[in-house]
């Protein structure tokens, strides 16, 4: 193991937790309505928005009201984005004169960006006008992250006995008080490092050897910042954060990895504040960190083994560089890949399709368990709460006590909601993969043969249902079959989890809180941390081990025997 890679991992862990705790405190203040330093600038704008739109900021919404607001807002977002993409050529800022998108690509992309997935069936620089990128897509980088955060906060409030709050208020606050200010600082940093930001047409270059090369341009820095902070991951360019204009050097790479985990970690600290006990948040953070240490170790180890097929051809020993950039070390590439699939970000700085079979399997497993290892903005928190409630329920049954979490009873209603949220995405992943693997439309898109081809299909639906958005990018997904089925998987994976979570939040908020006695099962200690991590692993393994056996594990075994496809 390279020493510098270990230093990188340690530096990453330290900085992200350090800054996460600060932002967490700030987030708690925002959501609890306390004064913050941005009030003088933001409050007047916010109040104007709420007044004009007729939003009652005082009253907490019920389950039905909250769900209705959230769904209407999101479906309207899908509709507008569809219109912008489907009629792209009618709008401004289209110097390359890109045509309208097909109905299925527009539909897929609209659902993709609104659900915080940012799956891309297209190549950005060869498909999207600047207007589509800047106005159409990137607004959802803000709003989908803010929606996730709002749901997480509603759940925090519900679990700690408060009213769940108002969707519009929390969503707007997250956007204007957290995402936008951080994005501004971030974009300026990226600009200083060489990330481009302009509206000019593509530049024709006469290379030193006298050949023509055209360089794609665009307003990248502003979009890049929120792409990472909001765990969106939809690249301006096809190569995403592997593209030097999106991620020019090691420093921007470090900050990009850092910024994926920043808000998910901050939300855990905010949760500790809501619960009135920091250790409630830290216990969950520790559980995620434990799982993350395992997956990072797995990815890094598998990648460091290299590809013996290449070395047998006379290539020097070392990790495979197919799909990787020289400016990112093995540690920097593995860390990025593990973080982006742990959180539901989906940005990539190296091509996951070219990763070793086992590393690819680890990346998939992280998405399969529901993006709960830190997870997306908000989505990681409420996703992990599915497992937390399930864990407490199981512990309660095992020791013969009424299952409770934070002094509130977990009853049939909550467990039903938990099971729905757990089963829907899993069913979407396995169901759609099975269909795609068994029809001509599904098989037509493959770039690799053998078990790796099946991996491409499985990865696609896993990424979609987990709202991740990264891909085994060899798969040609811009076909009616893939665009439509992936869009359905993304929709189920997002709202099939969110709505049960709002139901749990609202139901818990109305329940009596019992004082903890010495005999109660606690959720702020090491036992709970480990139990939670094990629950995630066991449920994930039970559901997906067969699928992983036919893909990653089969490919690994065949690779060891020197088989090529």
């Amino acid at each position, binding site marked *: 193991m390279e020493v510098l890679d270990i230093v990188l991992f340690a530096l990453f862990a330290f900085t992200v937790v350090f800054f996460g705790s600060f932002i967490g405190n700030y987030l708690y203040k925002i959501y609890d309505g306390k004064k913050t330093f941005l009030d003088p600038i933001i409050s007047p704008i916010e109040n104007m928005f709420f007044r004009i739109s007729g939003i009652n900021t005082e009253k907490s919404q019920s389950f039905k009201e909250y769900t209705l607001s959230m769904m209407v807002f999101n479906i309207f977002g899908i509709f*507008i984005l569809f219109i912008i993409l489907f009629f792209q050529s009618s709008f401004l800022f289209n110097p390359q004169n890109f045509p309208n998108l097909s109905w299925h690509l527009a539909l897929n992309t609209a659902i993709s960006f609104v659900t915080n997935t940012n799956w891309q069936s297209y190549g950005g620089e060869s498909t999207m006008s600047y207007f589509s990128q*800047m106005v159409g897509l990137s607004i959802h980088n803000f709003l989908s992250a803010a929606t996730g955060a709002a749901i997480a906060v509603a759940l925090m409030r519900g679990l700690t006995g408060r009213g769940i709050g108002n969707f519009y208020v929390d969503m707007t606050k997250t956007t204007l008080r957290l995402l936008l200010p951080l994005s501004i600082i971030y974009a300026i940093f990226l600009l200083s490092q060489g990330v481009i930001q302009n509206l000019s047409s593509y530049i024709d270059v006469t290379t030193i050897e006298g050949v023509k*090369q055209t*360089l794609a341009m665009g307003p990248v*820095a502003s979009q890049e910042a929120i792409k990472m902070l909001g765990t969106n991951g939809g690249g301006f360019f096809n190569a995403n954060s592997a593209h030097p204009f999106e991620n020019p050097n090691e420093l921007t790479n470090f900050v990009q990895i850092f910024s994926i985990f920043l808000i998910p970690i901050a939300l855990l600290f905010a949760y500790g504040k809501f619960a009135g006990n920091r250790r409630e948040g830290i216990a969950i953070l520790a559980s995620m960190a434990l799982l993350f240490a395992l997956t990072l170790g797995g990815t890094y180890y598998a990648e460091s083994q290299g590809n013996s097929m290449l070395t047998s*051809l006379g290539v020097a020993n070392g990790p495979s560089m197919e799909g990787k950039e020289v400016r990112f070390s093995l540690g920097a590439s593995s860390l990025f890949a593990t973080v982006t699939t742990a959180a539901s970000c989906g940005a990539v700085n190296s091509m996951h399709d070219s990763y070793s079979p086992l590393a690819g399997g680890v990346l998939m497993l992280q998405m399969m368990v529901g993006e709960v290892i830190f997870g997306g903005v908000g989505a990681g928190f409420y996703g992990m709460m599915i497992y937390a409630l399930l864990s407490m329920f199981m512990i309660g049954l095992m020791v013969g006590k009424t299952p409770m979490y934070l002094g509130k009873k977990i009853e049939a209603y909550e467990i039903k909601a938990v099971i729905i949220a757990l089963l829907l995405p899993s069913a979407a992943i396995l169901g759609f993969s099975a269909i795609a693997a068994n029809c001509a439309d599904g098989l037509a898109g493959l770039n690799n043969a053998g078990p790796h081809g099946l991996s491409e299909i499985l990865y696609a639906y896993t990424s979609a249902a987990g709202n991740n958005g990264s891909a085994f990018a060899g798969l040609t997904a811009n076909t009616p079959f893939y665009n439509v089925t992936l869009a359905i998987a993304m929709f189920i994976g997002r709202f099939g989890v969110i709505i049960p979570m709002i139901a749990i939040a609202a139901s818990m908020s109305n329940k009596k809180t019992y004082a903890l006695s010495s005999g109660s099962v606690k959720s702020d200690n090491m036992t709970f941390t480990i139990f939670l991590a094990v629950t995630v692993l066991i449920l994930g393994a039970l559901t997906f081990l067969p699928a992983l056996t036919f893909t990653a594990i089969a490919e690994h075994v065949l690779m060891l025997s020197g088989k090529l496809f």
Partner: protein
Amino acid sequence: MFKELKKSVLLFSGLTLICSVAYPFTMNMIGEYAFADQAKGSLVYEGKTVVGSTLIAQNFTKAYYFHPRPSAAGTNGYDGTSSGGSNYGYTSQKLHDAVKARVEAYRSENNLSSAQKVPMDAVTTSGSGLDPHISVMNAMIQAKRIAASRGIEETQVIKLLRENIQKPYWGIIGEEKVNVFNLNLILDREFGKVKI
């Protein structure tokens, strides 16, 4: 339902104006005034023509230049409007065949024996297809060919190469590497353009 839609439409419009119009245009202005070079793509000019960007790989095939990594961007590689990798997995026959051909080409270009190992980055395509860097080892091997075709000493090329190695940030983040485009510009500046 209609009331809810009205709320959504108004709030959505307001937030769009701030986050998707005011924010990116402000960044455009900051880019234009404070980071003009970076915001436009770190372009390099010779006279009035743009010869490339220091961040984007371009193809070099001549023996007297350092060669970049192979590229899978676009049909012919190094396509600045179609970034991307090969996306071949570990067990791909196509990857095997491509690397095999590249290993042979690299050995014959640089006059290596068939026992000598070829650097990994020299025969694999990057994720972006526009990776502007190569490893120091890869550059060192190419130095001999470049010196021979330019009629200069190998030590001169190696000296220049060593001076232009990019070091890790603060000694800890990153690895040593060289930027092919920059290095070739410096080669031409130091030893003159090769007349054909």
